[in-house]
């Protein structure tokens, strides 16, 4: 037999009891060859290219799912940032581009399509500005389109003019989707040091340096890591790190296998495996619970940042050896609404925005799916974005902000999104104003260690 029976049963237990799954198989498609001075023509080409390239994506994933016996939760598409594509046309408003992405995604049956994006970390072109202005309506009028804007980088510094603008855009998006308590904002990410091969939403786009068409994979297995830690109670933390590494290796190998099979069957290049552990709001699928397993009474208390640092680093070390190419965000996801442990900690007031910010400084990807009171001002939202961007820029890491101003709701109330997006208790923001700071706009220059040549 290829393996011991124990190994076979362990794998089955991981899938059936610990909720090991492939979070996403994401196809990255370059739209650079769809550029046209006539917006109509460009959109027609975009539709044709996506529906041709991704025609088999869903059925291939279904086949792999059946063959390996592991669920693939989402199939997604990431495209070239639309500001680069639409810029050649004379269109003043890019909402139509979002609509064509939506139509193409629904035609091939994927769950999300990302790339309604602009990269403005050092400055914005007129096309970038038009795209940013189109975001609120684009997200309100489409179903599966996701948008992201990169407003800072370690090399370019922080574009505070764009940060100011994005605070307003997040607010407008929330207002336009007020009937769903600002749901549109769940599809909008503001990045520092955005990566071009991220398979996870809402921040996925297909960078210009990527091949024409690739498939990348994101895995989900916090339950597996937690179970592995349960088997070694009371051991020193270095032994915990060792245990996590081994679990990460196994989880990531499945990602590599699925990605290789998908690429082969779709006849495209295999991109990367993203090592991030993606949680869901279901019991048994929580990153927060892994941290608690390390010995914290509740996530958010003192020691959380250290525990997260251990987890994140061990996941990477185990995962790196398990696959041919690692990429994407490969950090820890601690979205408030999508992780049962985080939801409970936020509802109990055990975790605050300040603690979350500290956690993102050391290892996690950002302030993710955090609901703030509906009346939070655009300037305060901008200031939160600026804080996260500063952490990213200074530490050479990706940070992301996905804030949901919960229109009509106050602290302690809960925004229900449903599905993978879960539910978010509204968390308090600081009340003192950042208005004057944000209104200064301009640039925060890049740090001296941004110039490594």
């Amino acid at each position: 037999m290829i393996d011991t029976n124990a190994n076979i049963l362990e794998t089955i237990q991981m899938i059936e009891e610990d909720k090991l799954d492939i979070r996403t198989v994401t196809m990255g498609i370059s739209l650079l060859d769809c550029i046209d001075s006539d917006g109509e023509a460009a959109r027609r080409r975009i539709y044709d290219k996506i529906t041709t390239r991704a025609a088999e994506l869903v059925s291939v994933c279904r086949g792999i799912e059946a063959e390996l016996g592991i669920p693939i939760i989402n199939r997604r598409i990431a495209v070239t940032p639309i500001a680069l594509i639409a810029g050649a046309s004379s269109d003043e408003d890019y909402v139509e581009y979002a609509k064509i992405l939506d139509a193409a995604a629904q035609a091939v049956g994927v769950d999300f399509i990302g790339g309604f994006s602009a990269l403005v970390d050092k400055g914005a072109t007129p096309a970038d500005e038009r795209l940013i202005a189109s975001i609120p309506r684009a997200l309100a009028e489409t179903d599966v389109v996701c948008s992201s804007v990169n407003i800072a980088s370690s090399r370019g510094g922080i574009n505070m003019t764009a940060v100011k603008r994005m605070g307003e855009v997040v607010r407008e998006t929330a207002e336009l989707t007020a009937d769903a308590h600002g749901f549109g904002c769940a599809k909008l990410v503001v990045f520092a040091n955005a990566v071009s091969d991220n398979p996870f939403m809402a921040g996925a786009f297909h960078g210009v340096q990527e091949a024409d068409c690739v498939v990348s994979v994101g895995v989900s297995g916090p339950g597996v890591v937690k179970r592995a830690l349960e088997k070694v109670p009371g051991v020193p933390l270095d032994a915990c790190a060792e245990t996590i590494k081994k679990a990460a290796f196994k989880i990531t190998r499945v990602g590599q296998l699925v990605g290789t099979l998908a690429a082969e069957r779709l006849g495209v290049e295999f991109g990367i495996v993203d090592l991030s552990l993606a949680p869901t709001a279901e019991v048994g699928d929580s990153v927060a619970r892994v941290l608690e397993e390390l010995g914290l009474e509740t996530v958010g208390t003192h020691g959380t940042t250290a525990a997260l640092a251990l987890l994140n680093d061990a996941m990477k070390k185990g995962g790196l050896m398990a696959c041919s190419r690692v990429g994407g965000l490969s950090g820890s996801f601690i979205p408030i609404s999508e992780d049962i442990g985080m939801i409970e900690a936020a509802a109990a007031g055990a975790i605050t925005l300040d603690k979350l910010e500290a956690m993102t400084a050391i290892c996690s990807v950002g302030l993710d799916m955090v609901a703030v009171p509906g009346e939070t001002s655009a300037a305060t939202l901008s200031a939160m974005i600026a804080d996260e961007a500063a952490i990213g820029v200074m530490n050479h890491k990706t940070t992301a902000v996905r804030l949901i101003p919960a229109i009509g709701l106050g602290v302690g109330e809960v925004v229900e999104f449903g599905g993978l997006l879960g539910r978010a208790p509204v968390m308090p923001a600081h009340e003192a104003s950042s208005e004057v700071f944000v209104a200064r706009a301009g640039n925060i220059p890049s740090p001296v260690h941004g110039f490594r040549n």
Partner: protein
Amino acid sequence: MKIILTVTGLDHVGIIAAVATRLAELEVNILNVSQTLMGDYFTMIMQGSFDETTRTIEEIQEGVRPVAESAQVEIRIQSEAIFQAMHTL
């Protein structure tokens, strides 16, 4: 393609016979079998192979479903590739 079948459920007479017969009908060659009882709980792991040009794994999964129902056991059929990926360097 090489596959791993795992059969679990309450033990009773004829589980192996029923599964093996159905696999023969589906032209799956049994390569290896291991079976244990934990209390009344039956666990069997089988390695098999079949010709991918004549059948798909979905057809085999579908094909054993009536046996799983009548024998009141759970039968999973997965490509050997996932176990190999996870547990071998």
